[in-house]
């Protein structure tokens, strides 16, 4: 950095801009791996997927352009409608149930309970395992003749439980039960939000004569509504993409009663190797999810209250 007196201003200016340039470059360098990932694992594949959805492609040879053929075919495909129905019904049952139970548990745990960490752990544990382990465990619990669920139903209520997973009428409910068992995640998020609700609000309400239900309805729910909203969105997206439990437990049966959309997509693309049709299916789900999210966002302003950001 030894510069003569006369060259100094120019060098300083050049140095400054060089330093600026270096700073920009460093930024891009540090974000580099992610940017590369964005291009190769996200943007590129998405564009490719749009193209593939306009082709017929079975991985032998090259894709044949069929225009909107796949989309037209979907309109007449009964399994598309069946799988959309199954997935939607599953989401409609499991998501609200999980929201209510997740909130209820969080409210219970927020009642100045002793040993809260222990309770929290117990309720959260199923969500920790998640995935394949949960599926295999429940396959055994739901066994029609020797499963724990039917044993409990028989012992406590004298009910002869169904053959949950192989009965067309109950199979989908079985998955709702499983999803409810892993409610711990949303409970945890709710609980931490509840712990941020100022206690003065509750005290003031009590003095005004509000009962327990009113306190939940008019204080708890509005105050943590952004968190409930978050759980709703995440829950719906996850439910509409359900795959693992269904693949391991029923593969869509009996009689397509548990054929989720992702299961059908998997079968189409990777078992029947119809990559073009599969891509079109992916885009249909994408649009469906997008529309649902949009509708929920639109209606959210009626019940989701955002406070001015704290601090």
């Amino acid at each position, binding site marked *: 950095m030894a510069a003569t007196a006369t060259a100094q201003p120019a060098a300083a200016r050049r140095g400054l801009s060089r330093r600026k340039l270096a700073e920009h470059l460093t930024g891009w360098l*540090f974000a580099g791996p992610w940017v590369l*990932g964005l291009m190769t*694992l996200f943007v590129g594949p998405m564009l490719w997927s749009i193209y593939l959805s306009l082709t017929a492609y079975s991985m032998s040879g090259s894709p044949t352009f069929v225009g909107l053929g796949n989309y037209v075919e979907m309109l007449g495909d009964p399994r598309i409608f069946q799988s959309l129905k199954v997935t939607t019904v599953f989401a409609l049952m499991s998501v609200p149930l999980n929201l209510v139970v997740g909130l209820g548990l969080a409210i219970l745990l927020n009642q100045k309970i002793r040993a809260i960490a222990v309770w929290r752990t117990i309720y959260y544990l199923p969500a920790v395992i998640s995935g*394949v*382990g949960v599926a295999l465990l429940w396959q*055994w619990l739901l066994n029609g003749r020797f499963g*724990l669920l039917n044993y409990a139903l028989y012992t406590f209520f004298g009910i002869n439980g169904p053959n949950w997973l192989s009965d067309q009428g109950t199979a989908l409910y079985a998955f709702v039960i499983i999803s409810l068992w892993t409610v711990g995640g949303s409970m*945890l998020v709710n609980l931490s939000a509840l712990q941020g609700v100022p206690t003065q609000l509750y005290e003031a309400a009590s003095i005004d004569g509000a009962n327990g239900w009113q306190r939940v309805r008019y204080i708890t729910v509005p105050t943590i509504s952004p968190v409930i909203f978050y759980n709703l969105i995440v829950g719906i997206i996850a439910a509409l993409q359900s795959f693992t439990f269904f693949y391991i437990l029923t593969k869509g049966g009996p009689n397509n009663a548990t054929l989720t959309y992702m299961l059908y997509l998997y079968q189409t693309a*990777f078992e029947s190797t119809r990559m073009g049709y599969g891509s079109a299916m992916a885009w249909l789900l*994408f649009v469906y999810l997008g529309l649902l999210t949009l509708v929920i966002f639109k209606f959210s302003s009626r019940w989701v209250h955002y406070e001015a950001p704290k601090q």
Partner: protein
Amino acid sequence: MRARRLAARTLAYVLLLVGAVLVSAPFYWLLRSSLLTEGDNFIWPPILIPNPPVWRNYVEIWQVPFIPLPLFFRNSVVLVVAALIGELIATSMAGYAFGRLRWWGRDVMFALLVATMFLPAQVTIIPLFLLFKQLGWLNTLLPLIVPSWLGHALYIFLMRQFVMTIPPDLDDAARIDGCGTFRIYWNIIVPLSAPALATIAIFSFQTKWNQFFEPLIYINKTEVLPLAVGVRMFQSAALLPGGGVSGNVSWSHLLAATVVMVLPILVVFFAAQRAFIQGIVISGVKG
């Protein structure tokens, strides 16, 4: 008033207790069934306490000739460790770039990052499969590891939020002492972000250990399968009439293998419970 509060508190405890029993019973049943002989699992009314526990189920699962469980386990460990290292490096670097550095296009890229968090990924499944096929990566662990080295939007977001809470004075002081951007990243940001990195590590471990869809489509070769997919071979074997191909895989074995599969997650959870729960809370409340 007092009496009512007491009643409410008691009710809360009763509800919690009933719920806790309901939630925990499946765990007990899993353990119990994995410690029974095949025959004893199919007795009505069920045996509630294995007496004596059949520990050999846990030995036998490692020795089934046509199910290489030790290999599955090894594959999962390799996959998780390799992916974890990459994810930590890539996300902490990007988190630093977004949270601290100033560069052209940063805000646009950040908006893209957030967008990818909310865009469901199902549209990329097929092209990615074709891409990895083209690269000759099918039937290897590479398609499960390499993407982790390119970061993960949610974790980068978490990391950015964390980096923004680190006082910039520290960077300035280091810069005056002659530290470059990389040394600031490595000597200041990374050590101070330990809590966020721990959370990311645990999430990443849990996700990768359980990852099912991707290995299912990318790997078709028994010796390469990770545990989450491989363990299903016990399922198919146990479900066959007569209890498996060579007649020696039973439900007891399947459930013992399930215990083996979930045990590492439980161990990590109990070892790092605080970081774990903190992570759920941060990503849930602020996400």
